[in-house]
């Protein structure tokens, strides 16, 4: 991407209300046709960031560039962006057709092309049979498709989506995520999606920006973010549920000391001192105590069924590790002593 003009560039973007910073020093470059997800807990500033791009919130400092040109002087209606709102915000007094035609009519689209364009956009989201309906006569998923068509039809440079699947039930949400991603690939439209759901971010994105307290904690591709979270916060947000505070000791062999005494040999460039060990539950395996792969020993404290897999809480001295293991046979018994095998490349240490 370097040298290229980014489809969207945020440069030193900031927003504060009074003394309270909501977005601080956001720098980001997004190539054309990519889908970026702003991921973070509620109140992290991700929606404010999106609304700044759309033009509904004025930044306190910094710049927003689309295709290399600042859009800050432009009012929302002049910006080459279109937004799908969390509530869909369809116009209740207009039919589906008129909702989608709204943006085109404002652009003085000739009558002959108008009907064609609207129907093509509705066909993209498979809503063409519903053009005469009113929004109140549609289900949530259908309303969302119309909201999407209404934005696509005006051919924005950047399509913005604010928690687009938040109001849908789980099944429909997963279906719409895949559909949205396919559509985005097919049309090659640059998109920015706001969500608090890490699974959704992984399904949708080319790039993910994890946000906390108004700042970007990590900007990376989904695989990188999943495998190598930059810090404890990102790790925890990306579903790394084993986060154990201990000590890194450097002697003849570098090892992580669990609270309570157990030691695990690790490779790390960090200096010795307090660190947090991070490992996904699915990267922890159970093995026989005399197995050579066995790196640690612990006692099974609790087990629960998670579909095809078994979640086991293993007490290692004073710490508890969760292992998500394939279910076969009777599985471990509570109180049983088991060995733990941990894939070295899946283990991370963060300084505390």
């Amino acid at each position: 991407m370097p040298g290229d003009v980014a489809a969207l560039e945020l440069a030193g973007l900031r927003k504060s209300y009074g003394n309270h910073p909501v977005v601080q020093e956001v720098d980001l470059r997004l190539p054309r046709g990519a889908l970026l997800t702003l991921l973070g807990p509620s109140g992290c500033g991700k929606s404010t960031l999106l609304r700044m791009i759309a033009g509904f919130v004025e930044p306190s400092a910094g710049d927003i560039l689309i295709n290399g040109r600042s859009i800050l002087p432009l009012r929302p209606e002049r910006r080459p962006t279109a937004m799908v709102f969390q509530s869909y915000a369809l116009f209740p007094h207009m039919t589906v057709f008129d909702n989608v035609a709204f943006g085109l009519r404002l652009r003085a689209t000739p009558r002959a092309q108008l009907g064609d364009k609207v129907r093509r956009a509705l066909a993209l989201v498979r809503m063409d049979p519903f053009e005469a309906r009113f929004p109140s006569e549609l289900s949530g998923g259908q309303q969302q498709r119309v909201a999407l068509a209404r934005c696509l039809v005006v051919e924005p440079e950047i399509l913005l989506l604010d928690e687009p699947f938040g109001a849908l039930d789980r099944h429909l949400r997963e279906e719409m995520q895949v559909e949205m991603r396919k559509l985005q690939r097919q049309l090659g439209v640059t998109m920015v999606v706001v969500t608090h759901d890490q699974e959704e971010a992984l399904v949708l994105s080319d790039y993910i920006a994890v946000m906390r307290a108004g700042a970007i904690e990590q900007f990376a591709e989904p695989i990188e973010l999943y495998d190598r979270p930059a810090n404890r916060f990102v790790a925890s947000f990306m579903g790394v549920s084993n986060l154990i505070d201990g000590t890194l000791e450097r002697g003849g062999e570098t090892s992580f000391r669990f609270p309570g005494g157990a030691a695990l040999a690790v490779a790390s460039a960090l200096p010795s001192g307090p660190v947090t060990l991070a490992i996904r539950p699915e990267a922890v395996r159970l093995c026989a105590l005399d197995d050579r792969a066995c790196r640690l020993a612990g006692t099974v404290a609790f087990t629960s069924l998670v579909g095809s897999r078994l979640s086991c809480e293993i007490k290692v001295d004073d710490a508890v590790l969760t292992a998500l293991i394939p279910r076969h046979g009777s599985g471990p018994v509570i109180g049983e002593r088991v060995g733990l095998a941990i894939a070295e490349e899946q283990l991370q240490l963060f300084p505390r």
Partner: protein
Amino acid sequence: MRIGGLPWLLLPMTVLMALFFGAFAVFAFVSFLQPASGMPGYQGPFGVANYVRFLTDPTALGILAETIVFAIAVTIVSILLGYPLAYIMARSPHRIIRSLLLGALVLTFLSGSINRAYGWLILLGRRGVVNDALLALGLVDRPVALVYNWTGVFIALLHFTLPYFALTVFGSIRSVPAQVEEAARDLGAGALTTFFRITVPITVPAIISGAALVFSLAISAFAFPLLLGGGRVRLISNFIYDQLFVSFNLPFAAASSTIFLIVAVATLCGFFWLEGIATRRRIPMGGLA
């Protein structure tokens, strides 16, 4: 959903309504009788003479027509002034502006009609505040007649009806989600286009309700024409009053009232019919297809 005791629960309401509408029935009955000569009463024979008299009397018909035109004018100006007022109240980012406007409107509700009428006399009279100001500014060289004519009645009545209209549409504008207006902006509509193509159409049902309310208040205005009309402004209520307490012609007053009531109810039905058209298909009708 039928509850066993429901018919009994309806009884008190039925009695109350029967009493109210019983008065109308007596009134309607009297309208078919004749005045008793020389005293405020009525006697036979039974007939439609009072109605014929009203409908063939150019003065009476003129007053009815003037009342309707006047009420329509008040309604239109109430909409034109009240809607922007309500919009500012509903959408102003400044809480102080919202509270001030809302407070001012509620205050007019709390002050009586007579108080307000005299208030307008002080403001609009020949030696009133407004004329003094106009003279002092040199905008006019003689006091302008602002009261004891249609202008004074119109201003006072408008002041009376404006809060009803503004508060009716205020709630409706408030309930238009800000995101819907933002969506219009986002798709390329300027602030004015958004106002006229999104906000106003969505709130049309409330505009019609508010207009119906203002119209029924204006068409039945009595005190303002009496106090501020200077004898020159006679609306239908004043006409009926004169028949009752000046001419002591109770049956003719009853017939005039009945005709007035029919016209008013018919107009209101027109308003509700319009409202029905405006709200059609917007509210989900039961399940989804």
